[in-house]
């Protein structure tokens, strides 16, 4: 392909890519009869929300967090308990668990003002474990026995109790998350987050209150993870501490890195690859983890920023055009 046809392709993709994706997602259940495939796609929707919300923390703000399953668990348990014990409807429980995720984020964000890199990783990792161990030991969460019988969401007479209805609900939430993070990226708030990521001192010198933005990045990341938690609880109708392991935090982290750190489409792609591929490769059970490991290694060597490129200001596909401008700029200088 020459530059021109690539340019045409990238125009179509950037303009209509999301629309196309939404249409495909809406149409899939019409053609797919197998509940199993729909089930996997619901899981991918939830992982999309999680990876996208972690992206606000890591991709935008540059704060490494390995405790995202903790926020997920907070959301799931709060929603489940409110519905089971207090008789809340799913929708109110969902809003409350988002608020709880937000507060948990702020709480975890406070040490983030002083910690960076590896140290922050350890603190967030600890947070994930604390949440899991609390769920394991508290009476109200019934420890390792978990919480069964979580009701499904309802609107009037309609109950979201089939895979397909949950599929639409979860993807709607996923698109909401994608939309919100996408819009945020091009707002004052998003720019401030990215300025903190790129250079804290410079950001401060321009009047960016970095403590506020770091803490709120955690808050917003936690909020959407709380949403994913509430949906998850209601979808599986049963949660236990085993679900929210460290490996899930790591998995979400890998999705975001694999797809493209700091991009909007990246985490979605990552969720499809890391939640979808293992299902496709079930036949090769023992080899799939090896294959995934090799994929990650290859990626880190050849595309360290992820498949869709990292920190790309204009979105992955516009890269080629940018390279052209850069080439011209170089020739102008010399």
């Amino acid at each position, binding site marked *: 392909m020459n530059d021109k046809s690539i340019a045409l392709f990238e125009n179509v993709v950037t303009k209509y890519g999301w629309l196309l994706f939404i249409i495909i997602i809406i149409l899939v259940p019409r053609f797919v009869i197998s509940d199993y495939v729909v089930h996997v796609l619901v899981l991918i929707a939830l992982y999309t929300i999680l990876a996208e919300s972690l992206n606000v923390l890591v991709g935008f703000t540059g704060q490494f967090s390995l405790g995202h399953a903790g926020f997920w668990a907070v959301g799931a348990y709060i929603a489940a308990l409110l519905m089971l014990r207090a008789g809340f409807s799913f929708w109110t429980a969902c809003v409350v668990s988002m608020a709880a995720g937000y507060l948990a984020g702020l709480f975890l964000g406070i040490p983030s003002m002083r910690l960076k890199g590896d140290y922050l990783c350890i603190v967030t990792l600890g947070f994930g474990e604390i949440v899991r161990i609390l769920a394991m030991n508290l009476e109200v969460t019934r420890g390792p026995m978990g919480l069964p019988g979580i009701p499904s969401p309802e609107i009037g007479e309609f109950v979201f109790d089939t895979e397909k209805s949950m599929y639409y609900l979860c993807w709607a939430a996923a698109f909401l998350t994608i*939309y*919100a993070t996408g*819009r*945020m990226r*091009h*707002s*004052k*708030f*998003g*720019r*401030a987050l*990215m*300025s903190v*990521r*790129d*250079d804290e*001192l*410079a*950001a*401060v*010198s*321009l*009047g*960016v*209150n*970095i403590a506020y933005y770091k803490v709120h990045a955690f808050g917003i990341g936690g909020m959407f993870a709380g949403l994913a938690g509430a949906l998850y609880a209601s979808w599986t109708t049963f949660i236990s501490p085993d679900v929210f392991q460290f490996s899930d935090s790591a998995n979400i982290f890998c999705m975001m890195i694999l797809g493209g750190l*700091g991009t909007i489409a990246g985490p979605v792609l990552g969720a499809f690859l890391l939640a979808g591929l293992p299902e496709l490769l079930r036949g090769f059970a023992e080899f799939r983890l090896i294959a995934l490991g090799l994929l990650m290694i290859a990626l880190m060597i050849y595309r360290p920023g992820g498949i869709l490129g*990292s*920190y790309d*200001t*204009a979105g992955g596909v516009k890269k080629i055009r*940018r390279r052209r*401008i*850069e080439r011209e*700029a170089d020739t102008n*200088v010399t």
Partner: protein
Amino acid sequence: MSLSVNSISKAFGGVVALNNVSFSVEQGSIFGLIGPNGAGKTTLFNIIAGVFRPTAGSILMNGAHLEHEPNYLRIDRSIARTFQNIKLFHNLTVLQNIVIGMHTKLRRPLIESFFHTKRWRAEEAMARERAMEMLTAFGLADRKDLPARSLPYGEQRILEMTRALVTESKVLLLDEPAAGLNNVESGRLVDFIRMIRDKMGRTILLVEHDMNVVMKVCEKLVVLDHGEKIAEGEPKDIQKNRNVIEAYLGRKFANETEC
């Protein structure tokens, strides 16, 4: 507008980096802060910029005490700065870098950006327009969509200054603006600094090692040595000042030049 530094002292443990330094910067002047290595210039600069808190003394801007304010509030006090080793947002475009300079001026809350309300769009359009104006004025308009890291060094410096200027702060602190520039570029820098003062009416306080630049551009100088102010005055007087020659070149040389 007036910025004054009143008997500032700063000690790092037992090391006294600054001892009772005072001066005041007049509005619309180009003020230089010089001294040999280890004289405490950068420490003082950082105290004015809010990175360090002084051990004693005060910094006054229009009569308000700044010495204990957190440093992100310096912009609200109309003080902007640049850095010795250029600090840009490398992964963001040139235009985004400038727009972040307007951070404190954008008022619409986050929630409005989700719905792209009319007021939000108006504010963003205003910010972009203003940013483009500045980029055009400084000859970076055709670079607006490039990531900041891809600019050549000289342009990165200009971008950093443009970003500090777009904050509309009355006082601009420049930390070694000529560091790493060649003769031609530092000549351009002198014109640039004068232009900022003359056309945009900013007050400039700079720390600099390159004496060519300092003597050409500054109207008033303060010389520090071992944390103390040893001289203050116009560049031509400073050049003849015995204390200054002694501090830079040693007592023997100072004696020789005198006779």
